[in-house]
């Protein structure tokens, strides 16, 4: 079959089962767009035109995070490629399978400072799992399936493919088509290591499970819950693992670390064994590492050998697929009751609840809002967040009831993630309600994607927790910089409801003096996309909080805060 590089690229994506891609065309990538167009009646790939390449990157991420399968974003050379970088780096830090395809100037012009030329290969090198510069159309036959294989295998991550324009326009004869690339299972963990871990777990008196994003990506959430039950082990989650255990489970202790409830961090102080599954001992989770779980033996399960011992040296380490390891581990473990430890955990949970005013008194307190959203939204809702205070309030108070029920930028902490990720999630999971909780700072960072949302008419509700501040910055300035507020307050905050209407979307602003929760429920119950502007108290803080660099037991909670201001 005679074809061009561009049509070959389209066909290879079709063969990967890709139905939706997000991107923006431009000079160097135009042959690929022409190939999309030329599919005509047989067309199977829908292209979502975004308003900024970063939006395309995060829409692809939303699709990938909602499904676990690699998703594709496309941009042209130069600024198109540089605009994708943040979304690619974000995917790297949160281990999200992403294939980013960029146009490049023709190979004869590479290195000449040609129009819209940038060293995309060099720029993506440190932020991808792997990257390619395709040097011939024939190379695409190898590179494209391999990109999907690398993105989805082992610890998932982003792969970039830079394609010069002459590679897209070149003609070639294709006779043998390569098999589509996909996840290759890692080698199984040796049985004796699983048996060692089982013995160690059985001998522990105060075990705690510490679940990370790897539990979600390996589809091991149910197995982790079974393990917790079997061991009577209280369970903490990282931000990335929220949804792995239903919040109603009596063993669930919520998120650990910087914004955990005090009881959760105190429990970790008392643990004699900590089993980390798909975690990387991130500083936001551990606080000062030397004082993290001081009395616990560490056991660590991860698919990435390089994570073992990176931060904490484990006593037992198992490298492999978490679902496979947990399934085999459970065969070794009889049920254990540990009534004293369970009681201790539930005592700590009850003794240190999240502190917030009652709903009747302050319905728009962020914690009340998040709990209310949990009651109003369907159980299979996908909630995305941006980054800042609202993200931490969601992590503390919104009940994430299913794996992949919360999509959030954890590692890179990218403001602007929420709206495009919500669009991606809605594209990938038709029929499900998607809500994006954002802040007045974050939402403006990719606000242009409201135009994309208005075009697609997806069931995405954007909730702007509006305090007129970069709230988490303001909070840190209050707590750690003696209230010297610099560049954290906005003098002008747009009317987000009017802005939504300007984009052709439903826009609502809640009135604190009226019955805001009823209005919120009505707005959420109406079909289709909307933006809900929610005025919240300007100076509300996310508490408790472990100061950056401090140990997790040095939490600032409400009473300490009061004395700080005395």
């Amino acid at each position, binding site marked *: 079959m005679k074809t061009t590089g561009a049509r070959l690229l389209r066909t290879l994506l079709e063969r990967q089962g890709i139905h939706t891609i997000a991107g923006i065309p431009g000079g160097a990538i135009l042959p690929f767009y022409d190939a999309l167009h030329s599919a005509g009646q047989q067309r199977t790939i829908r292209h979502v035109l975004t308003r900024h390449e970063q939006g395309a990157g995060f829409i692809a991420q939303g699709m990938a995070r909602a499904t676990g399968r690699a998703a594709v974003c496309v941009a042209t050379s130069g600024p198109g490629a540089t605009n994708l970088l943040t979304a690619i780096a974000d995917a790297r830090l949160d281990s999200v399978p992403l294939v980013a395809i960029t146009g490049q100037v023709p190979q004869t012009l590479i290195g000449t400072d040609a129009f819209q030329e940038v060293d995309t290969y*060099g720029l993506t090198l440190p932020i991808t799992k792997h990257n390619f510069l395709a040097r011939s159309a024939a190379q695409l036959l190898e590179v494209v399936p391999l990109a999907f294989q690398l993105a989805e295998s082992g610890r998932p991550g982003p792969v970039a493919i830079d394609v010069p324009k002459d590679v897209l326009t070149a003609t070639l004869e294709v006779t043998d088509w390569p098999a589509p690339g996909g996840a290759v299972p890692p080698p199984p963990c040796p049985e004796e290591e699983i048996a060692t871990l089982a013995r160690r777990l059985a001998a522990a008196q105060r075990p705690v499970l510490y679940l990370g994003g790897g539990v979600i990506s390996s589809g091991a959430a149910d197995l982790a819950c079974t393990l917790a039950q079997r061991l009577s082990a209280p369970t903490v989650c990282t931000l990335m693992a929220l949804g792995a255990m239903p919040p109603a489970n009596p063993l669930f202790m919520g998120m650990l670390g910087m914004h955990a409830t005090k009881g959760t961090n105190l429990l970790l102080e008392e643990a004699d064994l900590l089993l980390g599954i798909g975690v990387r001992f991130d500083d936001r989770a551990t606080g000062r590492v030397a004082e993290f779980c001081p009395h616990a033996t560490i056991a660590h399960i991860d698919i990435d050998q*390089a994570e073992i011992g990176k931060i904490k040296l484990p006593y037992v380490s198992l490298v492999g697929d978490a679902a496979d390891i947990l399934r085999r581990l459970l065969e070794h473990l009889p049920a254990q009751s540990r009534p004293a430890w369970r009681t201790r955990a539930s005592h700590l949970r009850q003794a240190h609840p999240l502190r917030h005013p009652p709903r009747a008194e302050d319905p728009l307190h962020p914690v009340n809002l998040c709990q209310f959203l949990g009651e109003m939204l369907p159980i299979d809702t996908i909630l995305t967040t941006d980054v800042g205070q609202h993200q931490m309030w969601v992590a503390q108070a919104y009940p994430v009831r299913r794996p992949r029920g919360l999509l959030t930028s954890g590692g890179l902490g990218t403001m602007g993630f929420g709206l495009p990720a919500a669009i991606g999630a809605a594209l990938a999971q038709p029929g499900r309600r998607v809500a994006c909780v954002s802040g007045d700072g974050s939402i403006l960072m990719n606000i242009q994607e409201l135009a994309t949302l208005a075009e697609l008419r997806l069931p995405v509700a954007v909730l702007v927790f509006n305090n007129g501040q970069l709230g988490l910055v303001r909070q840190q300035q209050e707590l750690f910089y003696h209230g010297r507020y610099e560049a954290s307050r906005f003098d002008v905050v747009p009317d987000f409801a009017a802005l939504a209407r300007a984009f052709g979307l439903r826009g609502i602003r809640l009135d604190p003096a009226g019955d805001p929760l009823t209005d919120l429920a009505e707005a959420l119950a109406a079909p289709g996309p909307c933006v809900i502007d929610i005025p919240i108290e300007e100076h509300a803080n996310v508490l408790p909080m472990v100061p950056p660099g401090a140990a997790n037991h040095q939490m600032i909670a409400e009473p300490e805060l009061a004395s700080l201001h005395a």
Partner: protein
Amino acid sequence: MPDHSPSFPLPASSSPPSETATGNCHVLRDKPPAPTAVLELRVRNHPGTMSHITGLFARRAFNLEAILCVPLAEGATSLMLLLVAEEPRLEQVERQLAKLHDVLSVHHRKDLSPGFFTRLTAAASPAPAG
């Protein structure tokens, strides 16, 4: 900033440090002898491989004291020898290296010392300045 002045014994010509010498790959630093290790990598031989490997070290503020790279057999793969500081975090860097798609294997060459690179440089007789 690492000090790039070559202090290892130069061969007879003993020319002052030239652009060629400092711009070259095999530059040894003027520092008291620190424990070193030699890593042997088998890698895919294509234009991006060296960037991946040097980038990984640079991002971790790890200096590559010496690099030797030669193509193997048909030229599809290369053998690379790296002289690096022997530090506790080297093990973590080795694991990260092993994860690179272009790196096929990583081994410690305990039989090789920094002198191996010095002798090679001497044998290559750096070009005179100017």
